[in-house]
């Protein structure tokens, strides 16, 4: 029973982690809370639905299409809406992200209507049994895909040139640009990766809950953001850890009988962690300079 809950929690947590990574990478480099990120996740799910119709139920093609489309979307949004404000006060940039978020949500509502649509079957849902444990093949796919994507991300960040540039930029933005790093390219790339991961999360969640709606990104985005903060915003392993922790906390909270307060669990956890460790579990302490 306990193991069963852990598996459910990890599945949920893995999807949070996928979205949280986008928040955390963007924050790490330009200190921006990108509130439109949750909506990219939503658009990813919708593109997934459309792609299933086109590619006749091939799961991997669906996933790849959604990811690719969201890469284009994410980079375009950054180019059009965020880049002109690079040197503006940070609060303005924040409000711009909210403007983009409202725009994307209403755009999808106009296109598809506010009701949730089901996700067409792409994966056969088989219940697997290992001893006492029961889990669906979909859960297994979610865990595996998330694992592959996260390992892939780590490889990009640790071993490629652009990954090195990203790390340098998050260390010190101005110095990195003085060292000949094309900072605009790094930021575009960061948005690209973040959007791809969010799209993957969107497709996986769409399949898992069999429901896609224009406002699905609001709560999921907020919670993923909480996950990013829990782990220490700007810190990539932190986002993964935060996502998994949050998933586990929610599943156990519901199991413990707090199901009506499910959405509050994440935020209570958030406030407690912020008070005890203001920069999150794996975050570096902020230095206050005069």
């Amino acid at each position, binding site marked *: 029973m306990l193991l069963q809950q852990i598996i459910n929690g990890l599945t949920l947590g893995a999807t949070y982690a996928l979205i949280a990574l986008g928040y955390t990478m963007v924050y790490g480099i330009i200190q921006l809370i990108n509130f439109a990120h949750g909506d990219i996740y939503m658009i990813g799910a919708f593109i997934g639905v459309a792609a299933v119709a086109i590619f006749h139920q091939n799961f991997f093609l669906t996933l790849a299409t959604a990811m690719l489309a969201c890469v284009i979307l994410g980079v375009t949004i950054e180019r059009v809406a965020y880049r002109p404000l690079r040197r503006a006060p940070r609060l303005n940039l924040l409000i711009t992200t909210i*403007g983009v978020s409202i725009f994307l949500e*209403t*755009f999808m509502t106009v296109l598809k209507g506010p009701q949730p649509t089901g996700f067409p079957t792409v994966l056969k849902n088989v219940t697997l049994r290992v001893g006492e444990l029961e889990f669906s093949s979909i859960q297994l796919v979610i865990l595996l895909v998330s694992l592959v994507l996260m390992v892939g991300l780590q490889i990009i960040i640790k071993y490629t040139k652009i990954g090195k540039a990203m790390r340098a930029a998050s260390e010190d933005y101005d110095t990195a640009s003085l060292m000949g790093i094309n900072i605009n390219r790094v930021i575009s790339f960061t948005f690209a990766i973040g959007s791809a991961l969010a799209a993957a999360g969107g497709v996986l969640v769409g399949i898992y809950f069999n429901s896609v709606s224009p406002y699905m990104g609001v709560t999921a985005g907020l919670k993923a*953001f909480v996950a990013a903060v829990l782990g220490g915003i700007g810190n990539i392993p932190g986002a993964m850890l935060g996502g998994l922790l949050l998933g586990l906390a929610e599943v156990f909270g519901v199991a413990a009988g707090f199901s009506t307060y499910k959405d509050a669990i994440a935020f209570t956890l958030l406030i407690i962690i912020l008070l005890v460790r203001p920069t999150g579990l794996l975050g570096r302490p902020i230095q206050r300079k005069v």
Partner: protein
Amino acid sequence: MLVGIYIIAALGLNLITGVCGQLTFGHAAFLSIGAYTAAILTRDFHMPFLASLILGGLMAALFGVLLGIPVLKLTGDYLGIATLGFGEIVRVAFTNMKITGGAIGLAAIPRASNLINVTVFVILAVVAMVLLENSRFGRALRAIREDEIAAGAMGINTMWYKIQAFGIGCFLAGISGGFYAHLLQYLNPNDFGFLKSFEILNFVVLGGLGSIPGTIVGTTVLTLAPEFLRFVQEYRMMIYGLLLVLMMIFRPNGLLGGVNFRRLLRRRKQKAAAISG
């Protein structure tokens, strides 16, 4: 009338974020605390409107101070995030409580807000804010905004001032909530989600952070904009979102941000003097 109600709330937020520089994303929570408190008092306990309005404001201020004491230790984005979390917790709590009507909402609130009492309170709030900003208290808050460490070094008890500012801001939000409840006569926890908090933040930022006339103009424009955009029907919110983005790109300091009315007047006088002299 809704404009006036939002102006009261936006003035409160302007004090916290604009004058004192403390980022908060949970203003709607205090609006809802004031709204529910006032509504329940008049509806179930038949209290007079004015008394319940004030009590609603005090309740919001109380929660603001209780939240502020631990949370205002945080700085910058982290404070924003924590208040965002608090806002969502309040929303979920109201959805699950019996006395607030839960997810169905609280209906049949007597209608007591009218143009006169809203206007009176707006004027009171504006006057109070102007006086406050030009007092020792206001100067201390501005010092904290500019540089918290330096302000602390100058002997300002930054924590205490921040908590006070937070309490006053939340009090105004609570008052505004009370009016809101007695205008719409119906409350639903989902109306006070984080989007509402950002809406109020937009008012303040669009008008120009820290500027009282700016806050008033920003609130008026943004409250009326969706009404004027009604002719485009379902594309309304889409255009609203687009407008926000464009405003931020082309008018980054807000409509009236950085415009100092006194200096403007003085310059005009000087010009006139130069011409006549």
